[in-house]
């Protein structure tokens, strides 16, 4: 574990050291004991089959950054809370719980942080759509009226335009 995050700060695209979920709290504790005493952030990424939890911790002596990650199963997204090592992780874990549906065991403060009403599914999971984008008609769907001869300007077989970030319309006329 001593090699975690040591050396140059990870650049864009660099692999983030990963530990098993069962060793998450221990990995954070070892970083803390190595002088990485300041939790910079903790968040998650939905990888489909799993949810990756990522933490960046800084060493206040020289502001060197270390990163560490773990994976929790999408079917049972539970992870030990980092608050035993870094009390400031509470704020990040409340946000990550709310946005990615991860349960942090040992997190004392489970109040919602950013959302006043918890939606049915955590909003930052892939496959979830922003309700406002789905509910509001997209002005870009408009097309010039069909001409008097019944022909549409342009290519009539062209696929109907869809805005970014909304689900495709269900296929029509199919069982």
């Amino acid at each position, binding site marked *: 574990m001593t090699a975690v995050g040591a050396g140059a700060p990870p650049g864009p695209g660099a692999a983030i050291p990963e530990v098993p979920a069962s060793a998450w709290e221990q990995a954070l504790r070892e970083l803390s004991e190595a002088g990485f005493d300041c939790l910079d952030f903790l968040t998650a990424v939905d990888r489909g089959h799993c949810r990756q939890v990522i933490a960046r911790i800084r060493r206040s002596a020289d502001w060197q950054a270390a990163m560490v990650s773990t994976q929790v199963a999408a079917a049972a997204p539970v992870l030990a809370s980092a608050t035993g090592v870094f009390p400031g992780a509470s704020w990040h874990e409340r946000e990550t719980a709310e946005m990615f549906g991860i349960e942090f065991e040992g997190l004392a403060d489970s109040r919602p942080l950013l959302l006043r009403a918890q939606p049915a599914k955590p909003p930052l999971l892939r496959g979830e759509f922003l309700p406002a984008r789905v509910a509001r008609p997209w*002005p*870009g769907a*408009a097309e010039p009226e069909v001409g008097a001869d019944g022909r549409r300007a342009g290519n009539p077989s062209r696929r109907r335009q869809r805005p970014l970030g909304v689900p495709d319309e269900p296929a029509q006329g199919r069982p």
Partner: protein
Amino acid sequence: MMTPEPAHGAIGLDPQACTSCMLCVRECPTWCIELGSHTEEVSDPGARRPRTVNVLDSFAIDYGLCMYCGICIEVCPFDALAWSPDAADPTADPGGLVLGIDQLRGWFATPSDS
């Protein structure tokens, strides 16, 4: 009150230059532009068939939503949109921030330098 010029105060429209191609409407991050159009057939002298053109019926920007990013101006292939140093006025009614062709045409007449 000093407002630096050229200012990105509002976005003006030249309805004559607009071809109703919908690029600005579809690229707008806040979906704040609405455009209505229809097609007409135009017969050119000597042409074997009439050609079909889009005719602009309505164009409105909701200045309650607009984030003044200028993407609509950038994507317009026909320079039908341009920054204006003028700005929309405060209103008591949010619908009053939805401004149509008449207002936007006036702003196009006084474009900013950039």
